[in-house]
């Protein structure tokens, strides 16, 4: 058996894939062969490293060198210099934005320093298309342990003790859910993995499925054992082709190894998994809607109770958990509930994966212990705000969540603190906003999303959210009135109180939380017809400062709508009624006479 001296790990996640990491992988493999290093150097594609801002990522083991933004053309240099001659390719190393020093080892990067990777433990470390690498890292050991050494109730107790809560947004105790489903009496039961990730900006579930599909398969089998189900379904959106491929490969491998199928590990336990494809409707992340979609019906929610644990897929008891929740399960069984419960805060145990996005230096996927503060996430892991701008707010929980501001920066992040701060955990989207972001526009952006994603079943969500959007749009156009502010508030509360499912009940949260935290911005839009961040185009005014204007006519000549008048060598004026706010005058003026008010 050949023994590789070096491993080259290339990120095969969707983000890096889009930046030609597959071509890079091919190049590396070809050059390794050309150099006769086939037996010594192993080149593999892994799942996502999380540091998507700087992808494609290449990691060289064992010296742990972390290359960023590698192009297919860089392959030759990496092999010839690093692999053959042992000289690191400095230009591809990560540069610390603070002190401008290059960092070779990812462990020393701010992005990774504070992270604790449990759900993402294998992402960026193993070849997701090779079950052996998963097994080598204790894969299926937890399943084996459950099947041979523990009763279903013992496993459930362990899960309850671990304190693992649903990572899809609900935050319901996973162990308790398993217990309820296990106690429902039925000839058939189902395990469903909710992989219908739909939060704008969130992609942790995709990354786990792409980087470590077996962890989800193993956890589903464990869940099946606990609740008495022989069949599992993964509801995954069809827009995740790579995750689907990897899952299919993983399921096939697990079947070949006898880790799925009948009489698993000779214990008489049967379990198999099939995929069901969703069309990417946000509402299908709601478990009843998800189940209806799997049944071939329109993806819309029904009233709970009955909960799926009692009556789910085709009326049978069904346990629905999300991908990230499942990914934690094998580790909990292997390392013990106490270990897991030692991480995190009092009521939120373990870690949480967040998708960092927006105006932040290190955009990517991170996993931190519950209780980490926003400040740590934004400034240490995220590397601070882009271009040295001022932090304004962070939206957590996606369109169902709210915004947190400066005063929340030192709040430890967990389920309950987020709710207390007027937001929610959601599935872990974290969008950072700076001084250039208008909070009214932000609320409008999320309502636009909700209007698009509402299923249309209940009136408050179907029509109410549309009206919320319309009022917000009016505000950003400078046509808002004081009554509109009252309407926003009343409508938001009524929608929260009356909508049928979680989507509708939380959809006004962005409006309410921005109103709570940034009421002055709303009032500025209404009374002063002003948008302080300059994002609301309709509220901007381009003005010519008479003192600076020399009458060169450059602005007038370049104005596409002839809104600028004035004599040569005389002061020019912009007619506000005609101006379309394109900014051409500002760009052309060489005398700093044009400014925005």
């Amino acid at each position, binding site marked *: 058996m050949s023994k590789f001296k070096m491993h080259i790990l290339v990120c095969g996640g969707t983000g890096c894939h889009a930046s030609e990491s597959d071509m890079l992988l091919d190049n590396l493999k070809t050059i390794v062969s050309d150099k006769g290093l086939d037996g010594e150097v192993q080149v593999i594609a892994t799942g996502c490293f999380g540091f998507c801002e700087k992808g494609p990522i290449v990691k060289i083991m064992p010296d742990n060198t972390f290359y960023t933004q590698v192009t297919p053309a860089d392959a030759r240099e990496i092999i010839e210099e690093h692999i053959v001659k042992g000289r690191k390719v400095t230009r591809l190393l990560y540069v610390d934005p603070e002190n401008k020093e290059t960092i070779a080892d990812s462990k020393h990067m701010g992005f990774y320093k504070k992270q604790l990777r449990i759900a993402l433990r294998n992402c960026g470390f193993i070849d997701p298309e090779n079950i052996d690498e998963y097994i080598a890292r204790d894969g299926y050991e937890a399943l084996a342990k459950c099947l041979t050494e523990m009763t279903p109730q013992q496993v459930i107790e362990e899960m309850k003790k671990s304190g693992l809560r649903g990572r899809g947004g609900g935050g319901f105790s996973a162990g308790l859910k398993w217990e309820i489903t296990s106690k429902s009496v039925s000839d058939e039961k189902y395990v469903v993995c909710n992989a219908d990730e739909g939060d704008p900006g969130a992609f942790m579930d995709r990354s786990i499925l792409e980087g470590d599909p077996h962890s989800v398969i193993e956890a589903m089998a464990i869940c099946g054992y606990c609740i008495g189900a022989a069949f599992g379904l993964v509801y995954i959106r069809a827009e995740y082709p790579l995750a689907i491929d990897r899952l299919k490969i993983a399921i096939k491998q697990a079947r070949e*190894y006898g880790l799925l199928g009948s009489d698993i590990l000779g214990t008489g336990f049967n379990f198999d998994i099939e995929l069901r494809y969703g069309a990417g409707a946000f509402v299908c992340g709601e478990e009843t809607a998800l189940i209806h979609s799997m049944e071939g019906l329109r993806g819309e929610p029904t009233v709970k109770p009955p909960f799926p644990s009692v009556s789910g897929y085709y009326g049978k008891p069904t346990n629905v958990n999300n991908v990230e929740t499942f990914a934690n399960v094998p580790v909990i069984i292997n390392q013990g509930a106490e270990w897991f419960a030692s991480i995190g805060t009092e009521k939120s145990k373990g870690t949480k994966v967040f998708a960092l996005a927006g105006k932040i230096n290190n955009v990517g996927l991170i996993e931190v212990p519950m209780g980490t503060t926003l400040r740590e996430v934004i400034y240490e892991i995220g590397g601070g705000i882009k271009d040295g701008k001022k932090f304004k707010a962070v939206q957590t929980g996606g369109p169902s969540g709210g915004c947190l501001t400066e005063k929340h920066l030192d709040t430890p992040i967990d389920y309950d603190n987020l709710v207390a701060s007027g937001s929610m955990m959601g599935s872990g989207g974290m969008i950072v906003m700076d001084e250039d972001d208008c909070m009214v526009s932000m609320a409008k952006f999320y309502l636009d999303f909700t209007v698009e994603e509402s299923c249309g079943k209940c009136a408050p969500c179907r029509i109410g959210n549309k009206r919320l959007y319309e009022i917000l749009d009016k505000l950003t156009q400078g046509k808002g009135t004081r009554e509109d502010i009252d309407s926003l508030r009343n409508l938001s509360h009524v929608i929260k109180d009356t909508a049928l499912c979680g989507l509708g009940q939380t959809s006004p949260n962005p409006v309410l939380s921005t109103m709570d935290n940034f009421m002055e911005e709303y009032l500025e839009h209404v009374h002063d017809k002003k948008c302080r961040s300059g994002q609301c185009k309709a509220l901007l005014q381009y003005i010519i400062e008479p003192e600076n204007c020399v009458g060169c006519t450059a602005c007038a000549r370049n104005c596409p709508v002839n809104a600028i008048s004035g004599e040569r060598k005389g002061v020019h004026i912009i007619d506000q009624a005609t101006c379309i706010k394109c900014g051409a005058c500002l760009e052309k003026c060489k005398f700093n006479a044009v400014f925005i008010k």
Partner: protein
Amino acid sequence: MGQVKSLADLRKIKEDLQVKMSLREKSNNPESLVQVKVAMATCGIASGAKQVMDFFIDEFDKRNIQAVVTQTGCMGYCFAEPTVEVTLPGQEPVVFGYVDAKKADDIIEKYVKNGELVEGIIPVNYQTIEKK
């Protein structure tokens, strides 16, 4: 690979597979392990650095010592090739020159196992290759 029939089966398969992955596992946490860097520039390779590196890898395995063996560029001591930098957990790195199989064996037995220094240390103007 056939079917995994029992827990024992799974464990056995895992042990076999872990060897393949050990290199990656170790590099996750090299500070707690013995780190050996072999200078593998042209000068080193010409003097037999490749064989020395293989020797270290195989012997650490055989003698059950948790170590990470990596290659590095020219350390600047071309006169003393092959050169090897050894870092014991929590200690300053030490560079050895003129390393062949015999010397390597000495290094493992004496320095790595017992902390006794062996002949051939290059102490002058010591600097690791990587910038700290």
